[in-house]
């Protein structure tokens, strides 16, 4: 039986701007499973990023609940949410968002040092290993502006993983990258998932979507359809592509 790691119940999210209401998520019910590589897709304005940020405890909700390991994160206070983001969740952004005046290494260790129970030695070691694994150790003493976009994003992934989070959230992680770097980053995600990392990824990139073993399609703030796939294997890429494309076409993607 698959373990539910995030359980979304009757979720509503309404933005109000200058008195005008905009309901971005409508009565959504959804389960995210432990160990899954879940991809959320949808057209622009469908609410996919909003959903991601709500699940990642970075956006509050209007109605409904989000249970993480049985606890409703929508009821949690700010400090508890901070702890959640620090210890249980890792986040990767489209704009990468490394702190510009810290080196890649310093960016990676930042959340680690914020963890009260961590030691300098553990954090430094873990950072080194991650950067080595993501092949950016040789540039780890450079500033973000001194490395390529792909190297930045790989450092950002290392930062998201430094505290060994339960769930990795990624908002269009390849949106600012070229094709080559996109491939490298998605390979990393695939490998992480193979090693048991739960990943929740929002994308409009079809090629990125192929990496997931579960694709959820959202329109107008509600789940329209979903598709389950086997674990990603580059040997079966063509078939996988065909299956996913057919499904997306049926959804007028």
């Amino acid at each position, binding site marked *: 039986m698959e373990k539910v790691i995030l359980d979304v119940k009757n979720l509503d999210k309404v933005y109000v701007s200058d008195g005008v209401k905009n309901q971005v998520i409508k009565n959504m019910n959804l389960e995210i499973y432990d160990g899954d590589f879940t991809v959320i897709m949808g057209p622009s304005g469908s609410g996919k*990023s909003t959903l991601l*940020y709500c699940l990642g405890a*970075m*956006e*509050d909700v209007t109605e409904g609940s989000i249970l993480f390991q049985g606890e409703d994160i929508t009821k949690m206070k*700010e*400090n508890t949410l*901070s*702890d*959640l*983001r*620090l*210890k249980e*969740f890792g*986040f990767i*952004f489209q*704009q990468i*968002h*490394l*702190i*510009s*005046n*810290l*080196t890649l290494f*310093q960016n990676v*260790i*930042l*959340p680690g*040092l*914020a963890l009260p129970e*961590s*030691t*300098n030695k553990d954090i*430094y070691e873990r950072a080194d290993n991650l950067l080595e694994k993501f092949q950016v150790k040789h540039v780890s003493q450079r*500033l973000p*502006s001194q490395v390529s976009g792909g190297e930045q994003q790989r450092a950002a992934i290392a*930062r*998201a993983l430094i*505290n060994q989070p339960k769930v990795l959230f990624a908002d269009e992680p390849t949106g600012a990258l070229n094709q080559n770097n996109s491939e490298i980053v998605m390979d990393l995600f695939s490998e992480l998932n193979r090693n048991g990392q739960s990943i929740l990824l929002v994308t409009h990139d079809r090629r990125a979507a192929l990496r997931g073993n579960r694709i959820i399609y959202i329109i107008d703030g509600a789940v329209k359809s979903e598709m389950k796939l086997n674990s990603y294997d580059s040997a079966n890429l063509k078939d996988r592509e065909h299956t996913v494309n057919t499904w997306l076409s049926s959804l007028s993607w």
Partner: protein
Amino acid sequence: MQALWILIRAQIKNKKGSYISIFILTFIIGFMLSSSLSLVVNIQSAAREAIIASDFGDLYFNFNLNYVPTSQDFNNLEQMPEINRVRPLKKIKITSEAGSILHKNGDKTKVSWQPAIYVYDKDNLPLRLLSEDKTSYLPNNRLTPPQTGKIYLPIAFMSMYGADFGDTYIIEAEEDVFEYEVSGFVEDITQINMISIGEHNVYLNSVDFSEFEKKCEEERENVDETESLLTDYLNEYNYTYTLHLNIADEYGNYNTDKLFQSIEDATGLRNKSFFYGDDDMFVYFASLVSYLVLLVILVFVVVLFIAGLAILNFNIYSSIEAEYKNIGVMKAIGLKKIVFNLVYLLSYLTVIIMGLVIGSLLSAPLLKSVKPLVLDLTGMLGGTKLALAVLAPVYLFLIIVCLLLILWQLRSINKIKPYKVLREGKQAVYKSSGLNIKLKKPLFNLRLSFKQFTASAGTYFASVFVITILFFFVLIGFSMTTLMAPDHMMEECWGFDWDLMVFYQNHDEYEKQHPEVDELILKETAVKDSYIVYNHIVNGLDQNIVTFSIPEEYIDRMTSLIEGRAPRSADEIAVTKILADSKDVKIGDEIRLSHRDKEAEYTVTGFFQTTNNVGRSVALTTSAIERLLGDSYSDELTQVWYVFEDQTLSDRVKEKINAEYPDLKVTSVIETFETYGLMSDAFDILPAFIIAFTLVFVLISSFLLAEKIFYREQIDFGIMKAIGFKNSVTRQVFSLRFLIVALLGLISGSLIFYFGANPMLNKLVNLMGLSKVTIRVPLIQVLFTALVMLAVFWLIAYVISRKIKSLKVRDLVADV
């Protein structure tokens, strides 16, 4: 044009806070500069007007009773081609008793020193008369002598002794008492300075004056023609003259020292006088207090201006940084650099000019309101006009400096490339990593904060600079308070140690009364020391100088020796440093003193300082002064100075002496403390004023900086929140930098004070005749002030950082 106007309006609307702060600063600068400069100019003008209105003349001589200029002297003067008018004014002094004022309410005030009695002669010296409401002078046609039985006093008596119209002025001689009703106050320019050296001028009509003349003549019948010092002081009623001379037009540009030398060569009168000077000197003395006020205010203005420049610099820099993307976009769509330059130039210069002008205009009522204070301080009715002719070039200079700074900052607009802006956005601005500080525990927050600080150190530079300057002046303010503390002033300013001074009119009186007075004092308190002191006015180093002569065994009671040693023998002398520097005299040099027809040379053994005679003083042993003046040096005023075990008893001892010997002049250190205390009180409020000012600036500076830094780094805060940093931690990381900024400012301010305060304060005390000051700073108060500054600077930043709490993470990190 329209685009320019739209951009200016948007700029002002969006950066309201910056413009308001610049306006406030320039307003205060305009207000302070306008008030102080106008005050100085008005007082100088008033002094000049007083000189002209009273037909004072160009040169002035005042003689003591030991010399009466003769008609031959006047002829010799008139023969000089440099002089075209000689006006001797007869002066009568009674040696037995000083005057006193019986106020209308029945209180009596003793006036220090004997009065110098003159005839109010409108034809020779038409001194202006103050109106009864004390707001104007009487018109020319009302400048008449006082009626018989009435007297005119100098305006300075009003503030010094509380004299008023209708009071009674009393002169007590040994067998006579003269009482006059005070019916007028004269604007006597000599009474601003000379009151402090004992010349209290009073004015009668010719009838009343002739009574004194008769008495002088009666007593003078037996005077020896050689007029020795001893003979003069056998008389109770004495006369001599003051001289007012006008320089011939063709010698109008001559150096005054040379003119006085010519007069000395032709007549010997310079050395025979006890005081001489020109009209410029009296204008200077009249303006002295206003110069001091101006100096203090200029210090503030400089601080404010530097702070203003720092804030202006910061505002423009951060405004360009914040508008970086918009400027890039506008450049991409075709707006030229000149448009951006004009937006900043026109908006800031307009605000600066408005601040200066409005500040100046609002200073006019202040000038009106201090008119009574000017009257008290200077004995003149000062004007209340704004000194526009002086202010205009000063303001022009300030505006040009601001303009240059703005233009300098606007250079960065050139560097904004549209393509780079559109590609990299705001991140393109931030490229520095600062110092390579290892991030680790413990003190992780502080390390990260310091790292962030060094990454954009330039941004904080202006604030560090402002705090440096502000703290420097806080320390200056505190040190001036201790400098002006009465006990410190006594030590540095008087030059010699004393708690009580007893004055005997002449040696006979000393011989007669001193043993009894001494015994009385010993009954009242324990005496540590006592010694005789003589003061004389002689000529030396081309000017009148006051001599302090003290017996050899006591001369090392000098408290303000700053170099070398006290003189010990009859051919040695100590000179004030300020006098020595002005004439390039070194230790070991020989200087010549002269008095009338006598001269003597002395070797300089050391330098000391005193405010007596504005620093124009020397100290020597009694045997040394005897070489110059002969053994009659002690015939004149003899002083005995006492040093007590308990200084606080000096007032009580004085009262005891005056109860037994009411005619004896006695001065206690406590009453002198009170005199210094008035000045000290004024300087006591200086630190409070500076601190209040400083805190306001620290507040403004911190607020502006925190707002700008927060705005610039809010995405970083969003990232930190997103990766799990608690709000409290993020706020700490943000605000700790401000502690670092404030600390750096405090340390640099302290260092600058340590190395730079001495030269600066020395320049200030030079005005009083001193050349060196010992700076003492009250440590507890300074530390407390530093802590408050630190706390305020940090607290403002911490308060600003509360915005972190309310910002949505998603909103922050979703910014592209």
